[in-house]
């Protein structure tokens, strides 16, 4: 998917978020995990032995979707709604 925006219906409200320093549009009612997946981000974090990891449980239990949001590390991206201007760092 191109970096110039995420797909969505024209009627959908969008917010602008930063993912690893690049701007993306995301549906206002989506979660950070969904916005990352829509932006083509497959890796969310690296495991303790350096494996790539991404969401597993989708409901805040497994902690595999951890990213850094506005400087706060270990945020569960599947449980957090996107917000205008949010700054997200993945592995």
């Amino acid at each position, binding site marked *: 998917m191109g970096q110039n925006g995420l797909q969505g219906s024209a009627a959908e409200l969008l917010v602008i978020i930063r993912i690893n320093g690049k701007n993306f549009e995301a549906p206002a009612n989506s*979660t950070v*995990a969904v916005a990352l997946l829509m932006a083509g981000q497959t*890796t969310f974090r690296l495991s303790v032995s350096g494996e790539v990891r991404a969401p597993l*449980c*989708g*409901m805040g239990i497994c902690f595999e979707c951890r990213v850094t949001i506005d400087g706060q590390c270990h945020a569960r991206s*599947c449980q957090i709604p996107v917000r205008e201007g949010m700054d997200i760092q993945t592995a």
Partner: protein
Amino acid sequence: MIVIVGAGPAGIGAAQSARECGAEVIVVDDNASPGGQIWRGESRTLPDGVRFVSCARVVSGDATAKTLLIETAEGAREIAYTKLILATGSRELFLPFPGWTLPGIFGVGALQALAKAGLPLRRKRVLVAGSGPLLLAAADYFRRKGADVVLIAEQASRTSLARFALTMLRHPGKLLQAVQLQSNLFGVPAKHGCWVAAAEGKDRLERVQLRRGTHTFSEEIDYAAIAWGLVPNTELALLLGCDSIAGTGGVDVSLFEGRIAGFLAAGREDLARELYPRCEKALQFAAALDRAFALRPEIRRLAQPETIVCRCEDVTFRRLQDCGSFRAAKLHTRCGMGPCQGRICGPAARCLFGWPDAASVRPPVLPARIETLATVSTSAH
């Protein structure tokens, strides 16, 4: 004050009962809106007059002082209760197989939750696999979202499910739902006695190897939705010293048990009793489901020596196989000591190794901010 943890079917049911009896009710939930996992995105509401604390994690509790410690984006605070109802729901059972940590492999309810939060599935090749009635419901949902469901792979045998179909004659409502689902899924390939044996891909899922009897075949897919059943979230109940925990039973059992708990908490056992027969019938259905979808032994043998079992601490099957208990595994390998605190690997390890002990539970039951923990020590002195 009746405090209810969880705003899924059981929590909503409990809140209804308690409000009908005129009690003051607070409902606390980890999510932004009520409905739990099953009614996610369906704008379910709590009864009028209920205070809803959303996006709140219950980090700890004290059954003697009758308080819960909760953490929200605004900070930590304690909530006092006179009666507490734990309706903490279930998570999915995940079992390790080679490649199961690859990005692109989700739980079944997980992919549904992500789709409900806006993840586009149009034209995505999706495999739905594992076990349980959720597979069909989720496959139906994915298809309505435009996904190309390449296969539904249910590990239970056709014989086992046929026996279950007979049980369903005693539950006409359920039978109707099942027939509806089957007709919605007309044309979607589905196999019984079939399971995922391995996943492959470079830095993300590309294909899965499936097995059916002695036959092995592979599917190229974008996403895999795989889960082997449900596990109740019992951590908070164990922390607070509950010795009898109702467990998982599906949406009907949850509603009835929630309704019953709400009446009991409000001191109206007479009203609770009226629901016992219907709850009993729902429990019988749940028990029949459990029997029908019991895991075949092959599923417990999918993990290879180097397959990771604990995803937080990257502990392999090989390092765990001689541990003998979950406690020993924790001490020797750090299995279950990462951020999920054994919520994923604990049930998997019990299923794989048959270890008798559950993961021991100590506060905080979820990772918490240091300021939150400071709240406990302040209030304890």
